[in-house]
């Protein structure tokens, strides 16, 4: 039983990984269990999940690292 209890820190770690579907099944189970009795983490997890859906709704674009390097180079040449 002791092994099944996780700290809040561990819970936050799993929660973050879960946002990217990179938490294992066992980890998710441990997190679920933790969230039942820890209201602070439950509130945090809810916000974290909301942030994930906001990120996908925002549909942001970004330059790749290479594109940025090219742009920097052009600026340097013109400066």
């Amino acid at each position, binding site marked *: 039983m002791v092994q099944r209890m996780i700290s809040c820190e561990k819970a936050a770690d799993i929660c973050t990984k879960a946002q990217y579907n990179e938490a294992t099944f066992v980890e998710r189970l441990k997190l679920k269990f933790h969230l039942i009795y820890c209201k602070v983490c439950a509130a945090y997890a809810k916000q974290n999940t909301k942030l994930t859906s906001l990120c996908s709704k925002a549909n942001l*674009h*970004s330059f*790749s*690292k290479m594109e940025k390097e090219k742009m920097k180079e052009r600026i340097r040449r013109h400066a």
Partner: protein
Amino acid sequence: MAENQLHPNSWVDQYADYLFNYAIGKVSDVEIAKDLVSETFLAGLKSAKNYKGEAAERTWLIAILKRKVIDYYRKSNSKKGKAEVRMNFSYHDENEGDWLEEKVADPNGNLGSETIENEELGLALQLCIDRLPQKQSQVFTMKTIQGIPTEEICNELGINPSNLWVMIHRARTALMECLNQKWFNA
């Protein structure tokens, strides 16, 4: 009063993605948006001597980008000729006598307002990402926006996975605080 100064060497890291997302909202074409951002930076360099430090760097660059967007539409309009508006004035007899405005009401009106809201959200989020420490914003962007696998990011940046997750965690916590509460209550 603190005078603003231009730092062209940090423009790309600081503003490129914000300007990119702003531009996509206006021209809805990724490649054209990229070109406009790059042109904006070069135009900024050219007119750097006219910068009086009254506006923040970001605001000043956005003003340049806005002009680039207008120029783009002007050019594409002169190529294609005048925009053509077709309207069928009365195809439903029962509607005869209705105000013209009612007939041309945009059937996707609600869709439009959602797009605008998402655009607003996108820029708010991007502003928050830009405020993160550089390394955190880089890792967060690669992982969340570009969806690059953890292992690949670690290889590219020379960090280990637990470093990566610590940075992601800190970035997300900061973003939750930075993003206006209004987005979380919806």
